[in-house]
């Protein structure tokens, strides 16, 4: 406790023990900083009382931006004056979270000068989270960040900071350039990112293959999941090596776990009925040296994932079964903008696009944005007979 003279933290001290890196130790590394002393103090208080001590965030931010800052105020400002304000700045990370030591040091210097020196690397959406500063510091921090080449991320009812898996930079399975796409969309939609004009948040995530290493299907209003059209590339020699290695039972571990059972193994050759393959990645995951996604690559676009509030959580659902991911991604941007226009006009306040689609009906939604319905979009056709027939049907028949 001696290391935090101002507020003893017996409960938090417990969390300095143990093998996993300790956030308490992280905080105490700046135990000399009044702001961190107060943060530790209020946190210890929460541990004692089993309740948080933050007030609802008011609207604070930098000039001309509607998002990127989460206002936060202590409800014990007299006891903890140095965290009376304790706003978060969300800084848009480089695609794939790649850094050099120099650029990281720059960010550290800025934040040590203008804020608590405490960060999250990274936030769940992907931003660099600069945790805790006061209102007057926002503009200067922003100025230095932009000078260093960084900008703020999203918050509120705007396009949120897009994120991407490392993709082609560090993965042999990337079916499109996730970093290029993430960067391009982020730059193209700076206004949508910084100036909330939607009914609610809109998130984009880019995963290079169906392993979905950015959990896009669970957390993105628009999920770009890499996939392929043609045959899985097979190196039979390497398959035999995996079999010989004894680490893998090709039949049991690979073939029998294929969701469509479209593979067969005779001890020499691995045969794949690619017409039945649903691109799940399992066989490729198990034998990276032997198998690769096909050569006709692109992605499946899914739409509408979200957390439970308010109608229950949603996973993204298929929107475009397959599309090539080539800059400048014009077709996709056209679709995206059509969706935003429709949703902005007809969406309710705090209604995510996934909820909006369910409310108006996927069929009507597609009609409005001018996309043909295809069976890939559904798990199965309707089972209820409550069909809204339209005139033209009788003519057709």
């Amino acid at each position, binding site marked *: 406790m001696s290391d935090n003279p101002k507020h003893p933290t017996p409960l938090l001290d417990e969390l300095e023990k143990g093998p996993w890196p*300790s956030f308490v130790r992280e905080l105490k590394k700046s135990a000399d900083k009044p702001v961190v002393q107060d943060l530790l103090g209020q946190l210890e208080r929460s541990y004692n009382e089993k309740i948080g001590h933050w007030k609802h965030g008011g609207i604070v931010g930098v000039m001309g931006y509607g998002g990127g800052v989460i206002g936060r105020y202590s409800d014990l400002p007299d006891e903890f004056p140095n965290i009376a304000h304790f706003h978060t700045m969300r800084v848009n990370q480089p695609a794939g979270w790649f850094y050099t030591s120099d650029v990281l040091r720059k960010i550290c210097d800025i934040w040590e000068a203008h804020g608590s020196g405490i960060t999250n690397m990274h936030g769940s959406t992907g931003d660099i989270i600069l945790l805790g500063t006061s209102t007057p510091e926002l503009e200067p921090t922003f100025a230095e960040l932009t000078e260093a080449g960084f900008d703020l991320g999203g918050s509120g009812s705007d396009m949120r900071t897009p994120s991407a898996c490392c993709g082609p930079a560090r993965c042999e399975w990337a079916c499109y350039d996730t970093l290029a796409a993430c960067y391009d969309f982020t730059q193209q939609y700076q206004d949508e990112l910084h100036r909330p004009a939607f009914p609610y948040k809109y998130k984009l995530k880019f995963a290079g293959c169906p392993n979905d290493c950015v959990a896009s299907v669970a957390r993105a209003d628009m999920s770009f999941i890499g996939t392929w059209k043609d045959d899985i590339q097979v190196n039979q020699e390497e398959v035999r090596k995996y079999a010989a290695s004894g680490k893998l039972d090709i039949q049991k571990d690979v073939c029998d776990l294929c969701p469509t059972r479209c593979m067969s193994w005779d001890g020499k050759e691995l045969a794949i009925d690619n017409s039945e393959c649903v691109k799940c990645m399992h066989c490729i995951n198990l034998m990276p040296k032997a198998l690769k996604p096909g050569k006709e690559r692109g992605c499946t676009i899914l739409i509408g994932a979200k957390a439970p509030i308010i109608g229950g959580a949603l996973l993204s659902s298929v929107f475009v079964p397959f599309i090539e991911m080539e800059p400048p991604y014009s077709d996709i941007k056209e679709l995206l903008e059509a969706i935003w226009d429709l949703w902005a006009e007809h969406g309710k306040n705090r209604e995510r696009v996934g909820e909006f689609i369910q409310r108006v009906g996927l069929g009507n939604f597609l009609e409005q944005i001018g996309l043909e319905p295809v069976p890939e979009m559904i798990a199965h056709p309707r089972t209820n007979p409550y069909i809204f027939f339209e005139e033209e049907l009788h003519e057709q028949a």
Partner: protein
Amino acid sequence: MSAAKRVTDIGPPHYEKFLPEVIKKNYGKWAYHEIPRPGVLKHVAESGDVLYSVRAGTPRLLNVKSIRLFADLADKYCGGHLRFTSRNNVEFLVTDESKIEPLIAELKAAGYPVGGTGNAISAIVHTQGWVHCHSAATDASGVVKSLMDELFPHFENMDLPAKLRIAFACCLNMCGAVHCSDIAILGVHTKVPTIDHANLPKMCEIPTLVASCPTGAIRPATVEGAQSITIEEHLCMYCGNCFTVCPAVKINNAKTDGLSIWVGGKVSNARTEPKFSKLVIPYLPNNPPRWPETVQAVKHLVEVYAAHARKYERMSEWVERIGWPRFFKLTGLPFTKYHIDDFRHAGETYKRSAQLKH
């Protein structure tokens, strides 16, 4: 300065600036990867070039001093090149194999263990908790630290049937992939919010507030002459969404806030389709600083899974194979009415066939 001179809307820096030579050269031309040891990925390019990624665990909440330490290590061992992962681990991008050992040693010495690759437990995706958020039913960093201390061997060793993804969120907003994780810990409020009628009219828009309730529990009402709202207690399931839109409604409760445990979620398309996590323990007490009940419950779930699942079977795949009745038998967890869905699509979760194991 005048707004005119201000630099805005420049977006993030271009990622290419930060890529090491070996990546620029082999960008999109990686041939395969291996995991020579826990925490180390070996990616081999078609050109034959090799990249080693050394992955270290972090608390995610990082002091700039620690980030500088990472920067120094990157300079010393890999030309200053490093990255972070989608689960908040740090990865050092090493080309010289001989640097791996000493790097790992220095990381460990500094308190940042190496692991989390392959069929292991990687870092727990989590949220703000009492460190920064107003909605938190419990702390995030503290629960995660307590859990990882206990599950630590599974971070350093790839000794599980498959990847085991654990996530934590401190309230029903679920910032993170809690709703689709192998094991999820979710902070829950369990009492009807209290209303500050005096300030409500000033602070909140009543129509928005009424609309914010998933179960329609909120009704406009005049309380002591002033415009306010009432909450139909029997319709309230404590989601806290009213609090999100209106500070005058208080959801946090020191006595009754707690934690719930969920299992069987999944994100990847590998083998089986993505799935939501399902409730297995409705309520555990909020017990800082080490949350022993929660830690033991999760540890138990990991052990039962590890003991019974087949190779390559994710938690969800294991449970679906054995069926939920056997899951509750094997884990010894009580099955209660709380486990039975009663929200909008509840009927879709009933067992509508006679295919049962007796």
